[in-house]
């Protein structure tokens, strides 16, 4: 009472120390992540067509509605929920991981699951245990595996000219058969019949079961069949470097992650070439590069200290390798990320830092 009376009398501002603050704020971090994803978005648009735009818009609208709904239910200020950019980051990450021609109802249900159950049911921003984008992806891959095969586009240069906004919208929103568009895009490649499966990892999966991975021709990343993957990898790495430069993410995390994947992949390939693909294929196919810079660096679902984060990255990389080589799904990033998310509290406990003043001896110098 004393405070209020006296400060009211003298009309002085009251604040808690410290009065200075660093410039980086949570919303700025989210905006920077969105900006850093732009090169990846551009490459995806060019090689996969305009489906991404529709998916992103759809995910954004659904995410926004879900956030508003939760804010209403939890009696939180709507304005703050609207200003929160984290839902757009989730939407963009999910849009980049889902096949571009996914039917709209699957996209909507994935986003609703990600926001309502994975994020808000645990308490909203900062309280979720699992990465919402990855959880949404896994929700779909488990409940609608067929949709992934039919709607996946094998990337081809200038696919944006074939898969225009209108054509993709028709496939996504009306129940038009996506196979026609997929074939049209595939026709743009140099050698359209090089792959038996929808993607390289998919075709490897069947070969892996037959222990004939070696028989599959090594992809040439300069050819139009595979240059999209190389370009995507470079684009994500460029965005990641921007984040590192802006000190949004720790450089140790992607470094440890990529080094573990490269070293582990190379070793496994060397030991049993029939079971594992090579190091470069591990790095460039699937979501490895996206995960390295944008998914495992999600602070919320991570371990706390820097040491813990590096442990987290290494664990995630090892899980990716293990599931890719031994698992029954074609890609493993999402599963590995969720498993490491679950292990994050344990990592936190195991990597507890020593308290200040350990190693002190009575008398100091003597």
């Amino acid at each position, binding site marked *: 009472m004393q405070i209020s009376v006296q400060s009211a009398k003298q009309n002085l501002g009251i604040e808690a120390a410290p*009065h200075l603050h660093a410039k980086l704020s949570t919303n700025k971090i989210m905006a920077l992540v969105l900006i850093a994803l732009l090169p990846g978005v551009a490459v995806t648009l060019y090689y996969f067509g305009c489906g991404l735009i529709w998916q992103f818009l759809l995910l954004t609208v659904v995410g926004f509605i879900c956030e508003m709904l939760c804010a209403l239910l939890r009696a939180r200020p709507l304005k703050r929920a609207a200003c929160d950019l984290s839902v757009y980051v989730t939407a963009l990450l999910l849009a980049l991981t889902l096949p571009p021609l996914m039917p709209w109802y699957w996209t909507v249900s994935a986003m609703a699951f990600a926001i309502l159950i994975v994020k808000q049911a645990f308490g909203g921003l900062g309280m979720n245990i699992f990465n919402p984008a990855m959880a949404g992806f896994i929700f779909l891959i488990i409940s609608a595996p067929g949709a992934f095969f039919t709607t996946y586009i094998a990337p081809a240069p200038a696919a944006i000219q074939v898969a225009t906004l209108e054509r993709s919208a028709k496939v996504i929103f009306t129940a038009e058969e996506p196979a026609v568009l997929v074939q049209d895009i595939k026709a743009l490649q140099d050698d359209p019949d090089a792959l038996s499966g929808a993607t390289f990892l998919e075709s490897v999966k069947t070969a892996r079961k037959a222990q004939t991975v070696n028989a599959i021709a090594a992809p040439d990343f300069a050819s139009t069949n595979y240059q999209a993957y190389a370009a995507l990898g470079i684009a994500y790495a460029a965005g990641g470097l921007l984040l590192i430069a802006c000190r949004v993410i720790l450089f140790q995390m992607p470094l440890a992650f990529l080094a573990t994947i490269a070293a582990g992949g190379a070793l496994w390939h060397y030991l049993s070439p029939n079971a594992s693909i090579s190091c470069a294929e591990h790095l460039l196919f699937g979501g490895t590069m996206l995960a390295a810079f944008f998914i495992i660096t999600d602070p919320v679902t991570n371990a706390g200290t820097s040491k813990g984060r590096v442990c987290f990255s290494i664990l995630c990389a090892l899980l990716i390798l293990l599931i890719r080589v031994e698992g029954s799904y074609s890609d493993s990033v999402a599963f590995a990320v969720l498993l490491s998310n679950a292990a994050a509290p344990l990592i936190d406990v195991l990597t507890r830092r020593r308290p200040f003043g350990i190693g002190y001896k009575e008398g100091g110098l003597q």
Partner: protein
Amino acid sequence: MASSQLAKIMHGKIWRFFGGIKPSELKNTTQTPIEELPLPALITLPLERHLGAGGEILVKAGDRVKAGQVLTIPGGKRNVPLHASTSGTIIAINQQILPHPSGFTGRCITIKPDGLDEAVDPAPISDWQDKSPQELLERIRFFGIEGLGGAQFQTAAKLSSAIADGRSCNIFIVNGAECEPVATCDDRLMQEKAADILQGVDIIKHILKPKAVIIAIEDNKPAAIKAMQQAAADRAIVRVIPTLYPSGAARNLIKIVTGIEIPYKAHTSDCGIVVDNVETVYAVKQAIIDGIPLIKRVITVAGSSLKRQGNALVRLGTSVRFVLNHYHLNPERRQRIILGGPLMGFTLPSIDVPITKSATCVFAPTAAEVPPEPEAMNCIRCGRCARVCPSRLVPYQMYAYSKAGDHQHAAACGIADCTECGCCAFVCPSRIRLTAQFRKEKAIQYLLKENATRNERARARMLEHQKREEEAARLREEKKRAALARIQAQKAAKGAPTSAGDSATALPTAQDLAARRAAAVAAAQARRAKLQGLSTSATSETATTEHMPTQAERAAAVLAQDRADRKAAPPAASPALPYGLRRAGVPKQAHIIDAPWPEPQPAERLLSKVENPPTHEIEVKPATYHSIFAPAPEKTEAPKLPHNLSKTRKQP
């Protein structure tokens, strides 16, 4: 290992502490010389740190004091005396607002300066090299020297604990880091008074006899470094340390300079390292070589809301309002006045508070300079706070526990090690008030600990009480048993000769009862016959056997006789007796006393000007301690003798 580390230290190795931040410096007043402020209209001196248990105030309202005069004698060992900072009249000793974020009030002495600024004569110790450390320490304590870096820890206590019990001091570090943004007072002092500071260093060297003296200065103060290097020559090492925010905190500075991490449970002086602020060292020099007590200090007055900015030499007790007026404050709406730097300082709820020894800086920023704190968002566990914490804590965990009211876990996370340096809240992208929460949590922990000790004490008391009760019960039981045994023994002794004839103790049988009933019927018949004037020999025989008076009956008869006697005798003589002696006991009705009530005397008139005068006359006793420049008064009055031996009585 030890000597090698000392060699490394002497060689100039610099260690690095964990974490730390680089906030914007805002040090605009590096080039502004220190100016002495004029006398303020009022001087308020808080008493809280100068009394302690058993401390005494030596003055009373209305007294005239001179600058440097001792006003209190401290009670505790940790306290120092209070000195008047200018000459004038004491107008009140009462509750005033203290410089505290909550605007608490506390007891203060208010002096109205007379403008003459007379001072007591300085008492320099010219031959301090020949004095013992104890003498010098005593002087340092009684000249009111406390840490001027902000913590306000008593300097003499710190120094003496480093050399107590035959310990030897290894390293004496002069803290000129001044890592807090805005503050430039130490910087200016080093630039202007380098030689004086080195003299102070010599004095402390004489007291501590350390193996090395290191003056640590951050590399953003080139002028101060140059001045100190020139003044120091080979008397001390000037160590230039990198600019990183909490490097001025004692433990961080020790880590930087010596590589030793001293845990927060231990004292720095226990391992032979003493850290003192440059201004404290300067005050030590003034106390010993100039003989002036600590009544002024240098503060930085800065901020864009002021027309002028600068470093000011102010008298302790000057109000913040006076300082701001002198620098022409042009306040904005909801102007924030921050006492202390922008990272560790606090906003004042009122500017009518005195400058104390712990104030380093008065900062009056505009909203453009220091933007007002935005609303906090959710924690996204980005881990920035954990990366900058110099105490190696994980603040976001601690915050979560503390917010959830899980005080045990918060304590397990190491909240006791938090120095409230503000690094975590500085970097937090969600603008969470981490430091404020930790401050609150620490207060809660303190309360909890106090509660626990109180409960522990209560439990011990309860146990003791129970033990006592049990002991008493046991004694009672023993007594009872002894009494029972005694009674039984008596009974046995009594019953043995008359066991046959004692019908009362023997259990009556049915025949016996029938016989008794028959006897009673016969007796009744006999009584009736007697009433009718008839008597038979048979009934009289039975009556005599029936009325054999037992002891109890005899006692009852005596009592009844007594009662009858008392009823018969009227209480004629009783009113003359006092209550307690009256046989009839307490009277039923209260007596109305006719004597008039004493008229309430009017209370002694108090001085109307004084708001909150002391309730009792403050007696000025001859000081047990006497200042060197105010020697103890000669004892003029004759020693008091007991009455029977006094001279007046012997005179006719």
